[in-house]
């Protein structure tokens, strides 16, 4: 920590050295409490989780240290059966796991894409001047404010095939002629999850992007308007580029949450192959089966997958992480 700061301070060299040093010192003291706090809270749990994934820990042995080191067995191992056949086992050889990976990734991409577009639209609407926008802004936040365990059940109720209000709405408008068993069928269960997730998390996106829009200086628009530039052009040339940092950070945190999605799927849909995600499998192993070895291996893999996706996103999206370009 200190070394990097002093190292970069050295770079600054001559005349501004005193000022740079003062800033670097301040930076260190400003960063230290946050980093200490985070390290203090997160280091041990994260270390334990990764460590369990290399042991045969169960819920009975996690706290008494009686679990044994098994290397990569939870991830991948094989045994040769009597007839010479090789049987692969472990999370990486588990078809259910890869099915869950595919479900999660598919869900995350579609939901984050939809939420970004809709969130941006909503943010643009909220950013304009109109009567009662305070109330609208509060109303928008409601989906995000209702606890997921409640809203997931509520939607399950509303999506019910026989007494659900969504079906009776669609029937009365004539969009469908027979009620749809949304959550029951594998093909519609994922759609149901997407509908609810988009409903629930678009406000999150919208609010962050609204904050981004609010940070764009008004005079930028003024001068554009005076120059008579078409609003669409203003949007693509001025608004979007300036909004990009806010958009990027919103997408990253949505992506993080989407890839870890658990309670919505767990509550809303049957635990069938169509919707099971990585977090659901990990939850089942850790909380319901007490299999900490396998559950932690799945969590660690999920961590790795998320890290790869975020890194890819930052790289492909040319996110200015270190702030060197500004």
């Amino acid at each position: 920590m200190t070394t990097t700061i002093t190292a970069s301070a050295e770079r600054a060299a001559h005349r501004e050295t005193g000022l740079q040093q003062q800033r670097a010192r301040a930076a260190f003291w400003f960063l230290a409490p946050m980093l200490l706090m985070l390290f203090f809270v997160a280091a041990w749990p994260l270390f334990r989780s990764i460590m369990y994934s290399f042991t045969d820990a169960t819920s009975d042995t996690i706290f008494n240290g009686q679990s044994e080191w098994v290397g990569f067995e939870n991830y991948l191992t094989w045994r040769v059966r009597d007839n010479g056949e090789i049987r692969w086992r472990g999370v990486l050889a588990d078809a259910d796991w890869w099915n869950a990976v595919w479900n999660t990734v598919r869900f995350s991409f579609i939901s984050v894409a939809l939420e970004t577009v809709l969130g941006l639209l909503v943010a643009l609407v909220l950013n304009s001047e109109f009567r009662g926008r305070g109330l609208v802004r509060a109303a928008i936040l409601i989906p995000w404010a209702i606890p997921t365990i409640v809203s997931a059940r509520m939607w399950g109720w509303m999506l019910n095939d026989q007494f659900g209000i969504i079906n009776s709405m669609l029937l009365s408008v004539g969009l469908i002629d027979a009620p749809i068993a949304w959550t029951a069928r594998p093909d519609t269960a994922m759609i149901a999850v997407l509908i609810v997730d988009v409903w629930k998390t678009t406000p999150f996106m919208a609010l962050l992007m609204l904050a981004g829009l609010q940070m764009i200086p008004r005079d930028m628009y003024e001068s554009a308007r005076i120059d008579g530039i078409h609003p669409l052009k203003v949007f693509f040339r001025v608004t979007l580029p300036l909004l990009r940092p806010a958009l990027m950070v919103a997408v990253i945190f949505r992506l993080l949450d989407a890839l870890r999605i658990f309670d919505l799927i767990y509550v809303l849909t049957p635990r069938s192959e169509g919707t099971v995600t990585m977090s659901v499998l990990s939850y089942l192993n850790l909380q319901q089966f007490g299999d900490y070895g396998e559950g932690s291996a799945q969590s660690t893999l999920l961590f790795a997958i998320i890290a790869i996706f975020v890194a890819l996103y930052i790289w492909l999206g040319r996110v200015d992480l270190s702030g060197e370009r500004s």
Partner: protein
Amino acid sequence: MNHKLKAIALRSSALATLAALAASGALAQGVQVTVVSGAVGAAVANFDALVKPWEDRTGNDAVLVPMPASTTDQFGQYRLWLAAQNSDIDLYQTDVIWAPQLAEHFVDMTEAATQAGLIEQNFPSIIESQTVEGKLVAIPIFTDAPALYYRTDLLEKHGAEVPTTWAELTETAQKIQDAERAEGNSEIWGFVWQGNAYEGLTCDALEWIKSNGGGQIVEPDGTISVNNEQAAAALEMARGWVGTISPEGVLAYQEEEARGLWQTGNAVFMRNWPYAYLLGNGDDSAVKGKFDVAPLPMGSGEGAQSAATLGGWNMAVSKYSQHQEAAMDLALYLGSAEAQKQRSLNEGNLPTLPALYEDPEVLEANPYFARWPEVFQQAVPRPSAPTQGDYNETSTLFFTAVHSVISGEEDAADALDDLEADLEDLLED
């Protein structure tokens, strides 16, 4: 009468002990026993009154820590506490399938229960469900078993008998459904049950398979028996219901969705737990006074018999408790006829003691209890005793396989074949 006398005798003896304790100054030594339990209905509010006699008698103090009613939330939490050897909690109220999974953290109560006479007073199948390798790990305090709900008015109208086999049920349900729909009752369905992929499907499917002579997934001696033709036939039968006599949505139904259809008058038959009886007879219910219950139907073939999956709750004493003796005493009290009767009167819980089903007071408060001893004769436990710590995974593998069959994704024979291999991997490690 007899009971009243006993109660009076108890009270006076309690007073005597109290007096004696007070005299010797030992009252202050009463310990505090902490009980965790899912907060269901009035159980939390009634707890103080329920344990009052025990507190008076022993000078101890019983404190209830309520937990969410969701069983998965409770189970995860209890497992963590026990793993951490938490000594704050003395008594755990456990679901029928938990104590065997957590057996090594609980005190053996065989001797205490035998002495208190509870072993011979209980339904044998309930005691069996709480016995792991000869050790009684929890004391039953109330029980639960599903039944077949049927609409008396509709059966009468269409001249049908109460079905005793699944084939009859399928036929009757179809007949009435068709006839009612022809009359314009477009929302009616023949049969509703729990088809969501969750623990409840394990219960439903165990009943189909067991009643069809297909065994009980994993037998008490540990043999994996699920891969057989009769089991496959039972699942194929259930698959045939989806979209014909049961709505397609049944594949996502739990208990409450089934009750929703039933209670709005849109189902001829329903498989559900006793709780739906009282609610179905509520003043606002469309089926009030129009239905009755019977044991679930049976299948065909060798060994076919009606089967009802055993539910219910028990009290287990933590090994890490500082007050094991007091906790055991409280567990025995909560499992006794005295406390079980209070529970039936106040909360409508089904007792685990056959004698209480003949108690006039209990029957007066819950007239429908009279139907249930018959159901308990056919009660079948889920295989949590032979699979122990692997039960949840066994059950998950099982209901996932069943769900893939009834939703038409997989053939029953193939699914059961795969399931057998998975269970071997899991249990024969």
